[in-house]
């Protein structure tokens, strides 16, 4: 009886989606050549696909509801597998060593092409961790994050073009400029409520991109800047391959430094304030936290990392133009953070590796990349807002905790 009803439900949903997708999916029009193609098989595909997916959807929703209730009753949450393994030295020390060996050996074992892909992924790890400070920890949805990435990239490109500034000088300068931009942009907008903040940062991101596109005298407009030098190593002449390997290790170093910094920040007075601010702004202020200053520190610090990422990006590709800095780039970085787990360092790393490496290796599906990103954002929010690897709070141990508690009870 219930199975019967379930099938009926799925059938109805399937029919609904066949109706819904009918014109867009089936009737492909081309008003340039005045042709109309009918793709009836797509309709069948939608029907069958949705029929099965709707079972899955209802099952997942039911499980989510049940999980919510269970957590309410038992009052405790399961610690997920990965954080539990991370907490156990028997697992994570060998794991860490294995990862280290893999990381060091990678550019020597695999081709330059593979190394370059991994460099891209590592850039996303770094900027993702930066955005994680803003979105994951402080709960500020920044849709213009790529603007700071552009600031970093253009400051290296332009400083090099005009004054011959080297990569190593540009790295801190780019970071500093992005930081300053973060303060300048953040100061007026951080008073706004969360969703307005998202729109205004999106606006700022687009303003910067459009200015870069239109202000030819400054940024060379849409044609961009070419021949940006790759980073040097004590003035040595590096072959293309050596240079890739060098950038690879540079990025590994930068990623490690970022992880170190973000970890320490998370466990500090400021980091706690960020997380509390994400939870409840009014309560935060009532606890004596300066809302604007705390938000600004997260915003500007996140920007700094985007700036560094931008400098490396310019050095890696040796050519930049405004098309690398569209709103969609911001959304991809956001995807990295959301998929991996907002507020979780390991999560962001995993998220970046999945989102950047998978499309590279599944070339056949590369045109579906953005479609899938959209689906990921929705599904993650609906079913697993914490991401693949959700952040864990630090546990503090106290001597004689139980006895004290009992005394108090008595």
């Amino acid at each position, binding site marked *: 009886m219930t199975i019967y009803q379930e099938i009926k439900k799925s059938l109805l949903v399937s029919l609904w989606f066949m109706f819904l997708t009918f014109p*867009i999916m089936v009737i492909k029009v081309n008003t340039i050549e005045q042709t109309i193609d009918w793709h009836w098989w797509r309709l069948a595909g939608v029907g069958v696909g949705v029929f099965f997916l709707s079972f899955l959807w209802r099952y997942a929703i039911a499980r989510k509801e049940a999980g919510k209730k269970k957590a309410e009753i038992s009052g405790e949450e399961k610690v997920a597998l990965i954080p539990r393994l991370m907490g156990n030295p028997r697992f994570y020390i060998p794991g860490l060593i294995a990862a280290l060996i893999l990381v060091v050996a990678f550019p020597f074992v695999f081709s330059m092409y593979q190394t370059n892909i991994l460099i891209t992924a590592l850039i996303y790890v770094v900027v993702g961790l930066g955005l994680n400070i803003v979105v994951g920890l402080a709960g500020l*949805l920044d849709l213009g994050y790529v603007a700071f990435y552009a600031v970093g990239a253009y400051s290296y490109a332009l400083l090099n073009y005009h004054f011959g500034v080297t990569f190593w000088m540009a790295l801190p300068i780019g970071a500093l400029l992005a930081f300053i931009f973060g303060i300048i942009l953040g100061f007026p907008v951080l008073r706004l409520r969360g969703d307005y903040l998202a729109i205004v940062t999106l606006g700022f991101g687009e303003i910067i991109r459009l200015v870069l596109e239109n202000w030819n005298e400054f940024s060379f407009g849409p044609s961009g800047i070419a021949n940006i030098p790759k980073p040097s190593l004590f003035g040595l002449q590096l072959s293309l391959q050596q240079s890739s390997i060098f950038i690879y290790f540079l990025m590994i170093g930068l990623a490690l430094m970022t992880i170190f910094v973000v970890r320490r920040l998370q466990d500090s007075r400021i980091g706690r304030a960020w997380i509390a601010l994400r939870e409840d702004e009014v309560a935060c202020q009532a606890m004596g936290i300066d809302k604007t200053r705390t938000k600004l520190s997260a915003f500007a610090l996140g920007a700094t990392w985007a700036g560094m990422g931008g400098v490396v990006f310019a050095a890696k590709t040796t050519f930049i133009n405004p098309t690398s800095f569209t709103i969609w780039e911001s959304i991809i970085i956001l995807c990295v953070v959301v998929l991996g787990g907002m507020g979780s360092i390991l999560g962001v790393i995993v998220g970046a590796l999945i989102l950047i490496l998978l499309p590279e290796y599944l070339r056949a599906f590369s045109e579906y990349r953005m479609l899938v990103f959209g689906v*990921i954002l929705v599904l993650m*929010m609906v079913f697993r807002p914490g991401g693949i690897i959700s952040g864990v709070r630090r546990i503090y141990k106290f001597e004689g905790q139980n006895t004290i508690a009992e005394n108090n009870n008595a």
Partner: protein
Amino acid sequence: MDYFLELFLGGLTRGSIYALIALGYTMVYGIIELINFAHGEIYMIGAFTGLIVISVLTMLGWNSIAIIILAALIAMLYSAAYGFTIEKIAYKPLRGSQRLSALISAIGMSLFLQNYVLLAQTSNFLPYPNLIPTWDFLKPVGHIVRSTEIVIYIAAALVMVALTYLIKFTRMGKAMRAVAQDRDMSMLVGVDVNRVISFTFIIGSSIAALGGVLVASHIGQVNFYVGFIAGIKAFVAAVLGGIGSMPGAVLGSLVLGWTESFFTGYISSDYEDVFAFVFLVLILIFRPAGILGRSDTDKV
């Protein structure tokens, strides 16, 4: 003087277009406090559905007036269906969770819909036939205003009157106002909140679709990306007027339309899009409640 009039009417056209989209934004925001990022895509899907209907019926040799009316109606129906479905999938399961989550979900939906149309149809700009006839009596002023624009003004005005009636005088309108005021309380007194929310999405989406068909006819082309920038601008207009307020959305749209028109007409057209964003940033910083919005203090 003619140039001024041209810019003025051009601004009015822009404003009316923004209004048709902004109304949906503002209605949804008023009810569930969510910036429905996918609203621009609903508008785009409306335009595309209209194009498909137009293409098919033109091939069948129908009369052009009948085609444009039917195209608009079917586009409205489909966009309403999309709006309804999107709410059920991407927003309803997130009710009661953090606002950030719903917002990210909305961005995901927007991204999905753009690429859905891109993959199912094409990434190229498609020419959009304008089936609205050129009226004879407009011939003398043809260089200033076209009949499509007149239709846009009329459509926008009719929609506003109809919406005002709906909100002020119908049972559903009353329920919508109640839910906007206090969702939990409305639920307690027996308002079917789910129905009200669905209804809001349906109405907002069909208005956007009407806008989509008219604008595409006016501009003469469409692609999968037109919804995004139009959506953002309409959102600027909604915020400018005071988000959540319907007269505000219309007023904000007109103000934005005119300022854009005069700015590009008299000063520079290079920075047309920058201008809208700068405008948005300035409003939010100096008057976040908008022209007609009430400044809301956080409930504590």
